[in-house]
């Protein structure tokens, strides 16, 4: 995968062969990985550096999740309130409240879908 030829098209055959040979040698040299000398106990030394530092909090906060749940509950409550009072509303307000009901329904659906996707991504 990693030894694509670099041959330019405008070279004579012998020059092309020479370039191909050189390319192969270059790739071989590049693929020859160095063998570094890793000090004994390097990993332990790094780990001991961590203990000396301020511990990093790994406790998840879930602020977004909580805000999402609150938003879902509030939207659902608003939808219910609107639905219960819908019949009592004056006919002139019918269109306005219908629009509001639709917007809240869309918002509720969006939050529900987002929440389910978020739960799915944690698996």
């Amino acid at each position, binding site marked *: *995968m*990693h030894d694509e030829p*670099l041959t330019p098209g405008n070279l004579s055959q012998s020059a092309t062969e020479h*370039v191909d040979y*050189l*390319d192969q*040698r*270059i*790739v071989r*040299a*590049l*693929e*020859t*990985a*160095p*063998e*570094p*000398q*890793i*000090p004994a106990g*390097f*990993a*332990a*030394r*790094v*780990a001991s*550096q*961590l*203990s000396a530092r301020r511990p*990093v*909090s*790994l406790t998840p906060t879930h602020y977004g999740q909580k805000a999402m749940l609150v938003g879902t509950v509030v939207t659902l409550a608003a939808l219910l309130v609107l639905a219960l009072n819908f019949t009592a509303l004056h006919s002139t307000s019918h269109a306005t409240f219908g629009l509001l009901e639709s917007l809240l329904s869309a918002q509720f659906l969006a939050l529900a879908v987002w929440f389910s996707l978020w739960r799915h991504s944690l698996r």
Partner: protein
Amino acid sequence: MPTDLTFEQVVRDHQEMVFRTLLRLTGSREHLDDLAQDVFLRLYRALPSFRGDALITTYLYRIAVNIAQDEWKRRRRDRDTHVSLSDDTSGWEDRLAHPDRNAEQQLEEHEFQQAVEEQLQRLSQVERTILVLYHQEERTYEQIAYALNMPIGTVRTHLHRGRKKLREGLQQRQTQERRAACTTNH
């Protein structure tokens, strides 16, 4: 502490790759331990925000490249950008002898390896990094693009340009050596 023990295992699993990459990128064994330690400490600090959208290896490459860039900047500040292959802190290629080849071939391969290393250090930082990640570390274009935070097309361009410069540099060197040999013979 369990967290430290787990992280110690992460270090142990990836230390060879980090040392190897840093050694090739910086071209020197100088401060290699400290640089590798910096890589892992940066990884540790970044772990809380690590969302797992990439392999930890790819993430480590990104950190190692950043650390190498910082080292290049430090060296430039110290006016020490020229890396001599006779420097006793470099020359990792001394231990690359192949037991199945004769001495002459080994010497030739060794000299060629040295020449490649020398030319590699003359490339731009980004070209050198891409060549090392692609050929030595066998990373894909996508992984290199992620590590260097650049488009895949740019990675391809730098890779092609880097290899071309490397070849031209080596050809130029070979021509000079031939001329020098002819002058000596006459």
